[in-house]
């Protein structure tokens, strides 16, 4: 009977651990849906000037968020390709995908290693004639309650990639993220430039939970339609489904050392409900009591 029970309990080596590990490694890679700035996606107000129309600062932030998403998605596209493929080789704490031909005739590979819940990864590659691989994208992920619900950072060497592709572009893009509760992103562009632009630094901080959103950034814009761009710092805060407030501080350009502070409050659809400034460049409109956030706020994270 004991023998029968022992036999019934069975013995063998059947396990999906190798594949579950593959899934863990893949979960440690950042994904586009986790790294997206979802600002203003649910706004529906018409773009025009005045109470009830879409707030201008909301429009500016949507445009900036779209640009940042473009940077990030461009980088993460490189990782999406490996998700549909089994790894080419495995070790207990390592995986390798590739080599496979990437854009710009680059033979690239994704290398991953794991130590406890910390995953290091890098995309390396070379073109024909290059003897050694160069790293174009790398990152570190710290697993949380699950591998996917963690935090980490990844860095994109835009100069390296542009050199392979023969493009007059460069700079470094780094993204620090935290997916443990909602989405928290800190995107930094260092000496980043596109063709014909001067290298510049840019920082974007974005945080979004079910209860609250916060987006802050620096950019250059001609907000007063003077024809001369000025330096703009914007802080957006919002409560999903209720409304929010955008506070801009504009300096430089035609303002010189003077600082123009312009605040707009908006409803759930992004429609303007109140605006005010310190220089009288805009006429105060609406009621301040309509603001979800009563006080203006400046940049805090960047």
């Amino acid at each position, binding site marked *: 009977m004991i023998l029968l029970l022992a036999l*019934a309990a069975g013995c*063998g080596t059947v*396990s*999906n*651990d190798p594949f*579950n590990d593959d899934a863990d490694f893949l979960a440690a890679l950042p994904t586009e849906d986790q790294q997206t700035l979802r600002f203003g996606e649910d706004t529906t107000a018409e773009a025009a000037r005045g109470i009830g129309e879409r707030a201008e600062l909301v429009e500016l932030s949507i445009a900036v968020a779209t640009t940042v998403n473009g940077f990030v998605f461009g980088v993460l596209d490189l990782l999406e390709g490996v998700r549909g*493929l089994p790894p080419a080789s495995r070790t207990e704490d390592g995986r390798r995908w590739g080599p496979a031909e990437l854009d710009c005739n680059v033979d690239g590979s994704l290398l991953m290693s794991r130590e406890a819940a910390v995953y290091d990864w890098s995309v390396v590659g070379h073109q024909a004639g290059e003897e050694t691989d160069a790293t174009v994208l790398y990152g570190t992920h710290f697993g949380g309650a699950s591998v996917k619900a963690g935090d980490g950072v990844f860095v994109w060497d835009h100069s390296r990639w542009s050199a392979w592709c023969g493009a007059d572009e460069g700079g470094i893009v780094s993204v620090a993220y935290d997916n443990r509760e909602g989405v928290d992103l800190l995107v930094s562009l260092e000496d980043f430039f596109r063709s014909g632009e001067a290298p510049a630094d840019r920082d974007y901080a974005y945080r979004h939970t079910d209860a609250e959103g916060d987006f802050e950034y620096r950019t250059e814009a001609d907000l007063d339609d003077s024809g001369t761009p000025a330096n703009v710092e914007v802080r957006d805060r919002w409560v999903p489904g209720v409304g929010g407030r955008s506070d801009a501080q504009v300096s430089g350009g035609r303002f010189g050392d003077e600082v123009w502070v312009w605040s707009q409050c908006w409803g759930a659809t992004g429609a303007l409900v109140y605006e005010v400034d310190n220089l009288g460049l805009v006429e105060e409109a609406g009621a301040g009591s309509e603001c979800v956030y009563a006080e203006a706020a400046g940049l805090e994270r960047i």
Partner: protein
Amino acid sequence: MTGGLLLVAMAAAEVQRFAVVVGNNEGAQGDDALIFAEQDARKIHGVLTELGGVSLMNTRTLLGKGRGDLIREMAAMQGPIASAKQNGNEAVLYFYYSGHADEDGLHLGTTEVAWSELSAMLDRSGADVRVAFVDACQSGAMTRRKGGARAPGFVLDLEERLDARGSVVVTSSASDEASQESDEIGGSYFTHFLASALSGSADADRDGRVTLAETYRYVYHETVFRTSSSRVGTQHPTEASNLSANGELVLTEMGRSGTGTLQLPGENAGTFAVFDVERRMFVSEVEVAGADRQVALRPGRYLVQRRLPAHLSVAEVQLAARGVVRVEASQFRRGEYESDVAKGSIDATIRTAKRPKLSLRLNVAGRAFSDPVVQTAYFPTTGAMGVEGRFDWREGQYVTGDFLVGSGGGSLSIEGLDYPVAVGLDSTTFGVGAGWRSPEFIVQAGGGVHLEAFWLRRRFPDAGVPDQELFSVAPGLAGWVGVHPGQWQIDLQLRVHYLPYVVDGRDLGMGFSELMLGLGYRL
């Protein structure tokens, strides 16, 4: 002068004898399987071919066969009979059946032949005279339907002109009676006394020939006498005839070439049973009272037994072809019932008959795990083929042994992976089972327990992961339903197994099921 020429012409013609001998231990649903029916058929086959003038070429013996076989053989017999008649000969057809029957007809295993069909087949045979011996329960239904009367008592020798037309049916019991087998005599009472009669016991006038009338008288008397004290009740053989004859039909003749004669002297009175040692059966029972009696037997070794209250009195004789052995009282030796060779042989026959019947089947199966996650992420549904052996006992129990081998492929869906993982799955299983089945019928069903030892291997041709194996023993249940036309069996079987095995923290207790289609043959 004219009459003399006619006699010469008639003498030139022959009477050719044909026989279809049928025995079937199996019956329809609800019939208990018989033990000696097929052996009885062999016994009568021997008597008819050795003493009855039926050549082996003109004999068809069907043991354990069904309706289709009987119809085929009866039809096949028409050709030789027609041929014999075209050559100016006359034909006698003997039909013997031992097996189950009811008021509607014969039960040939799970198939049936109506009494009217049997009568029609005999009539269509073309034989001038048809003689049927039917040893079956309620076989009197056949004679009752025929409604015939006893034939006149003239004698027609085996080689003489028949000058007779028609048919005679002798049955073992009346239409409302059971026919009985006896473990003591190793056969049915009716056939036992029919064989005894034909081998000489019924030769009342001691002329060396056994006629139909002598046979019937002997069989009727002995069967009624022997069964009168039986628990089932007295069995009354019946006879019906529409024979238009100018004489009596001789069925067997003593002293034919190839047989020997056993003489039992009249001074040693008593009832003697003759047991054929080689064929392990009683072949005759002879009553000796004052006058010598002769029994014609094929050459061989025989035990002549006289049963006394406390012991047996046994003489062993060797009989040669055309030889005559007279068994004197001095040749008999005391024998104990415990060491009775005949009884031992009969017991062996009974044991053999009661052994389970083996059927073999080829199974084609599909195997699926019950847990949907296990099915999609570990073991996809695969096919398998194998063989199964099943021993069926008469009482309805059965045991099985089987093995299946399978090989197939599919893909696994692993949570967190966007791509399917290609997997190959090989399996070998050995199983044993036991259960109960419904009574023998064309549609049968059964169910019981099943224990399966199985080995599974997963192969990952594209993933670079080593093969994985699993060995376990899974208890379960099995149920089947099938169509069993005669020896062939087509079964649909479902097995469900419990699998107390844990993979990656997931209990596979829900196990797996196998649905299989089997084509079987009962040996």
